[in-house]
């Protein structure tokens, strides 16, 4: 063993990123949940495609005229997003559960850098996997519509590539939302449960008083963000780019809050 020379800065952002990537790769649970997101998205794309195709065949000519195959294309994302958010949660809470967060903060005492490293890894993974999930959902759902004899869209239809990329970006933001929830709550169960509840809140809008329901569908960040992959915005929702801005701002605010809490709290 040799006595080292003067220390050069080495816990650099790039080194932290490499380490976080290695951690992500060697944590099986996160990989399984991510695989689960693919499975759920594709299975439900199949189910929605089949069900909606059958409904089309059995409906009146008036209803058939207003049928939009793209409405079916990304339905499954509403469910898959729960698992994507859990991927972000697990990237953080698996460290708390194993007790390694203390080690991680010891070797990278700049906690902000650690948080950014984890967020960056989830971003990279989801920028790759997100569009694949939406693309898969699109292809399967449209194939099933066509198989039932209903109109279906192809990749070359106007707005379709944009919606696929928008859906991928939406899932990336949801993954980051999970990271923020993980840092804020530190426990897997709590972060997944609360995280999922908040994502699904707009689904229960019909139970709310009308003014609140309208507000929730229009402005609740997860609901507004879904405009990013709805090719034909319905009357009540924000335009797609506004949905993106609202969701991205919310996620950024949560991450900023998570960072403040993470940096001030004893590990």
């Amino acid at each position, binding site marked *: 063993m040799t*006595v080292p020379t003067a220390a*050069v800065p*080495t816990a650099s952002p790039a080194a932290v990123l490499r380490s976080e990537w290695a951690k992500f790769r060697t*944590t*099986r649970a996160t990989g399984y949940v991510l695989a689960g997101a693919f499975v759920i998205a594709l299975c439900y794309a199949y189910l929605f495609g089949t069900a909606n195709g059958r409904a089309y065949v059995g409906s009146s000519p008036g209803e058939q005229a207003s049928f939009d195959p793209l409405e079916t294309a990304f339905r499954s994302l509403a469910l898959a997003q729960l698992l994507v958010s859990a991927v972000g949660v697990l990237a953080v809470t698996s460290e708390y559960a194993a007790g390694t967060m*203390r*080690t991680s903060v*010891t070797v990278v*005492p700049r906690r902000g850098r650690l948080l950014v490293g984890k967020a960056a890894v989830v971003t990279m993974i989801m920028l790759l996997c997100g569009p694949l999930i939406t693309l898969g959902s699109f292809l399967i759902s449209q194939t099933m519509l066509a198989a039932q004899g209903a109109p279906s869209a192809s990749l070359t239809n106007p707005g379709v590539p944009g919606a696929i990329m928008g859906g991928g970006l939406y899932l990336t933001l949801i993954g980051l939302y999970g990271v923020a929830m993980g840092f804020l709550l530190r426990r897997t169960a709590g972060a997944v449960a609360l995280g999922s509840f908040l994502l699904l809140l707009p689904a229960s809008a019909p139970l709310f008083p009308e003014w609140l329901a309208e507000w929730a569908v229009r402005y609740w960040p997860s609901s507004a963000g879904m405009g990013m992959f709805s090719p034909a915005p319905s009357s009540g929702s924000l335009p797609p780019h506004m949905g993106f801005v609202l969701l991205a701002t919310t996620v950024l605010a949560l991450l900023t809050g998570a960072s403040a809490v993470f940096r001030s709290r*004893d590990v």
Partner: protein
Amino acid sequence: MIELRRLTKRYGEVTAVEDLSFDVRPGVVTGFLGPNGAGKTTTMRMILGLDAPTSGTATIRGRRYADLASPMREVGVLLDARAVHPRRSVRNHLKCLAQSNGLARSRVEEVLGLVGLTRVADRAAGGLSLGMGQRLGIAAALLGDPEVLMLDEPVNGLDPEGIVWIRTLMRELAAQGRTVLVSSHLMSEMALTADHLVVVGRGRLLADVEFDEFIRSSSRESVLVRTPDAEELACRLRDAGAAVRPGAEDTLTVEGTESAVIGKVAMAHGVVLHELTPHRISLEEAYMELTRDSVEFGAAEGSGR
């Protein structure tokens, strides 16, 4: 060099560490000793910036830990060897750590060899025995070949061979001029490793001395005397300048004089002696005496010793 200045940590009403100041010097092994709950781990966590002190400062070579540019190359830490991702392999665990500080890949294999874990490098870290887990923790601490080492209870769970190994390793590291701070609640362990002692109890500093000095100051000798004329002999011995404490059933504990002198005094005054036993206070006893008032979960009076 680690410097603590008036370091204090309070959790609400509870004071875990109070006004703690001491230096840990390079080139020697410093034993950080105290009963369970004395604040040793909390102190180490504050040095590492894991817990924020309520007041006071802790610096490593003049800088706060959080300001170190390359933490693993400067400070090697073993806090809780059980803190590993259970299903990650031993090698991958070390790789993740090494990468975070941009350490060479070859260091992972080097430390694996150094702690004797090469054979189990592909096993899940969670499946290691207590002793092997401890070796993994020590491997992680050595990864950056650091100048300063902080080891919290490193011998926990090690087998006798492992204990000798870690003892030798710590001595070697100190001999190379590194700063080694090692905590323990066992005096017997420190007696074999430490050159310098910092003793804490209930979060306060009780002693900060060279080990040899601690031995000298605490190795008082006493003599146990049993005699039917205890009162008479006690008087005579006090006259001769000894400190005498009456014990149970005709016994006296005499300090400040030798057995031979006690025998002579007894003979001169016609006192019959039944027993005359010299007794050297062990390090363990001296340590227990020092920390007696600060043991958090002490056994009821009289059940010890």
